[in-house]
């Protein structure tokens, strides 16, 4: 397995883990931040796959602005979730 493929594998596994954590954790603020991490990993993956423009956008939008929107909303509603 080449280094790049290993890197790929590493990110893919972490991405699934991040997705599951952000959906399982009961604190919504944590969930939002972990979602930001998920987006950032996704952006790394896309950059690795040659989609630089998509990765750039995802870094700015997914990991940046989306996460900020989520945090802004969580601050304005209840922070804890029932599931």
């Amino acid at each position: 397995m080449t280094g790049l493929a290993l890197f790929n594998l590493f990110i893919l596994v972490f991405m699934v883990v991040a997705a599951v954590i952000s959906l399982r954790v009961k604190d919504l603020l944590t969930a939002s931040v972990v979602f930001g991490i998920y987006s950032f990993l996704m952006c790394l993956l896309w950059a690795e796959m040659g989609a630089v423009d998509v990765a750039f956008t995802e870094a700015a939008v997914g990991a940046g602005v989306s996460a900020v929107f989520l945090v802004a909303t969580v601050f304005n509603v209840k922070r804890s979730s029932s599931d």
Partner: protein
Amino acid sequence: MFGEEGLLNELLVERFNYCVYVVLLLIGLYAMIAKNNLIKKLIGMSIFQTAIILFYVSIGVKEGATIPIYLAEHDPHGHHAEHIVHLDEANTIDVSEENATPLRLSHEQDHGHHAPRSLTDEETLGYANPLPHVLMLTAIVVGVATLGVALALTQRIYRAYGTIEEDAVLAAIQAEDAATVIPDVLATKPKAKKG
């Protein structure tokens, strides 16, 4: 096309990306349907959408290809302009000779009038497919727009019902419905007319 035992191997090794995209998509879909908290649903929605984007980007991948930006030698404004000889104003370019003698500098080369040329089939293999990337830029934008609107709805719901748990919202709505009285819009009391 593949043997009995080859399938698993093929799925897990050669198409690991495809598998992970399926897993992420299912995680997102499940969260959208099953989660009770509205924000959790929305996080699920975003995961669901990014999974689809991952799928599209995977379509665009080419083995050994570079990113879809012209390398210097193909760049319409790059230094390739210097090693193309202008035979005449019609920009006829001898492509086959270009590789053989890459540095035939032309003295009457005018930098304002260089000629970008069409890439050969061979050369196109060296670049990743740009179309899925473009499509997914649009999809990301649509995703963030949907997320923003949905978050605004969440806040609106919270403002009115004081909760963002779906079952609590439903209960509040039912209570509201039960309390609603249909107003008798007609001012006159019909019963009184009877006698």
